[in-house]
């Protein structure tokens, strides 16, 4: 006989051995004890957990942590080196922490926060070591801002979702201590012009950052969306450089070294540099240029003719979004989208445009303008400016979606070569 131990005790009488072994979709994993006393995990079908009428059966009691509804199958899309946020499944502008994109160069390290320290040295009056507890004693700062990998682009075929094209961007409220506070604490020397930020993963990730960014708005962050950082986002401390390519916001931060020149690490030479025209390569491309993407309606969803609220996200690493335009006729004409408050500096901003689709084949797309007057370019404009040998870094073209008369929505790939 199997004995089932699950939280929903009042439901256990509804779970028979037959249904557990049946082919129904797994909704939850229950701990099942076999006759020999061994505990195994056993799938439970969603229907078995559901009362016929939720008003007739007392629900789950209060718990220690909340859970996502078993009906919501929202997941990241992992590869060996990264995992993409499901942009098409989000509402509003905050990325749930467990769905924040991941990009790391040698896995997520396991770090005991009680043992983790941050060393600041080099061109400073007083080299200091801070524990995580020390960092939390300093005056804190919070800001809502996006974080995007500069390699956030994929294209080339019709069957791509926003997650696949653009899922290496996410947004959180980041909390920590201003780096300028720590700079004052160690006494950064006037001749320091760059600093090295180093992580404690096995890649021992390093990037050189101009000292000016440290004084301006850099944060040594220990929290994300109201709780400690997730391990995937740098637990227990990371650098956070708003508006800059994600790789510079070094995670699992263990060391900052002030210097009078950049260090030319592998991640700022062999990687994270991009070909521009005339055989040249651009280096230290920190700022994320403005970008937008429609997240609904998009592949693989289908639509019906009639009223559609076109929804999406827009952002710029150089300031606020001032305008998003939407085209429903393949870029021939553009209409102003409504921007949803709050419109924050260097932050994902939600936009929408309500449209009555007459059911004929067309293409929809969005383009953003930021505070500096930069207008999101087309793929062809980027190729013209940089040459056709696009490395894929800092590639922010307008993304178009085809609406087919049968209601299918497909990405419209741009082809150059």
């Amino acid at each position, binding site marked *: 006989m199997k004995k089932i131990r699950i939280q929903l005790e009042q439901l256990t009488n509804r779970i028979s051995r037959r249904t557990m072994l049946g082919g129904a979709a797994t909704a939850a994993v229950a701990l099942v004890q076999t006759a020999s006393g061994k505990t195994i995990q056993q799938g439970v079908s969603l229907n078995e957990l559901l009362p016929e009428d939720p008003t007739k059966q007392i629900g789950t009691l209060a718990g220690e942590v909340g859970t996502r509804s078993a009906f919501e199958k929202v997941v990241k899309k992992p590869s060996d080196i990264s995992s993409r946020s499901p942009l098409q499944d989000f509402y509003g502008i905050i990325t749930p922490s467990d769905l924040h994109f991941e990009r790391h160069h040698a896995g997520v390290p396991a770090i005991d926060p009680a043992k983790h320290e941050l060393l600041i040295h080099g061109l400073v009056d007083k080299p200091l070591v*801070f524990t995580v507890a020390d960092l939390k004693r300093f005056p804190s700062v919070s800001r809502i801002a996006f974080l995007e990998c500069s390699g956030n682009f994929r294209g080339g075929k019709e069957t791509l979702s926003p997650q696949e094209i653009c899922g290496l961007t996410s947004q959180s409220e980041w909390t920590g201590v201003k780096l300028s506070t720590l700079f004052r*604490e160690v006494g950064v020397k006037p001749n320091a012009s760059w600093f090295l930020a180093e992580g404690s993963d096995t890649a021992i990730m390093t990037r050189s950052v101009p000292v000016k960014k440290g004084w301006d708005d850099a944060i040594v962050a220990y929290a994300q969306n109201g709780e400690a950082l997730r391990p995937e986002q740098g637990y227990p401390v990371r650098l956070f450089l708003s508006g800059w390519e994600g790789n510079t916001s070094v995670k699992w931060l263990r060391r900052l070294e002030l210097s009078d020149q950049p260090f030319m690490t592998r991640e700022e030479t062999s990687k994270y540099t991009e070909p521009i025209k005339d055989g040249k390569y*651009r280096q230290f491309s920190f700022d994320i240029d403005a970008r937008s993407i429609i997240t609904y309606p998009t592949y693989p969803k289908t639509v019906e003719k009639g009223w559609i609220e076109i929804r999406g996200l827009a952002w710029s690493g150089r300031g606020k979004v001032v305008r998003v335009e939407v085209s429903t006729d393949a870029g021939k004409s553009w209409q102003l989208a409504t921007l949803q408050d709050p419109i924050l500096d260097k932050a994902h901003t939600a936009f929408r445009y309500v449209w009555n689709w007459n059911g004929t084949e067309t293409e929809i797309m969005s383009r953003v303008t930021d505070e500096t007057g930069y207008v999101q370019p087309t793929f062809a404009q980027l190729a013209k400016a940089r040459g056709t040998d696009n490395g894929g870094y800092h590639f922010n073209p307008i993304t178009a979606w085809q609406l087919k008369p049968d209601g299918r929505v497909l990405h419209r790939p741009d082809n150059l070569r």
Partner: protein
Amino acid sequence: MNRYSFWVPSTLLFVALASHFQTNGEADIASSIAKVDTLPARFGFGRPATGAEITRLDIDVRPDGKGLPPGQGQVAIGRQIFATKCVACHGTVGGPNGSLVTTTNPDRKRPEKTIGNYWPYATTVFDYIRRAMPFSQPGSLTNDEVYHLTAYLLQANGIIDEKTLINAQTLPRVVMPAQKLFVPDDRKGGPEIK
């Protein structure tokens, strides 16, 4: 209350002063309300770093050679180490984890970006291998092994000859073919697409 107002958090200070302000409206108090968070020059948190712990963590190498340890590398020895510790993942000229050696493979539309045609500084080769390779056992190489491997990879990419010794003096002087190709970012926002 007054006794504490030197150091209480600004919100508390504000409450204390605001009620005071209502009763007598003194101008000097109004100006002190506007001042929030007068931060000390230093908080005194953290502890001084010892020379030993800085040395243990400070493994980076700059293009001018700062950070290079004592030791020396020879191409021939590096070739042997590469064959035992690196070849499984990188191959001699192009393995599953990317080639480290520039080749002109006519099958490819674009040449693979490697040390020979894309790396602007030779010191980066030393820094990266010592820091992160072999991928499965980072930090396992001695400084001499890293010098040997650096010498071999520079020779295999046609940058130095078989006889050149690589050490803290010679490595920063190696001029990489790609150095002249790198330009600093000149995007500035605004209407221009770059």
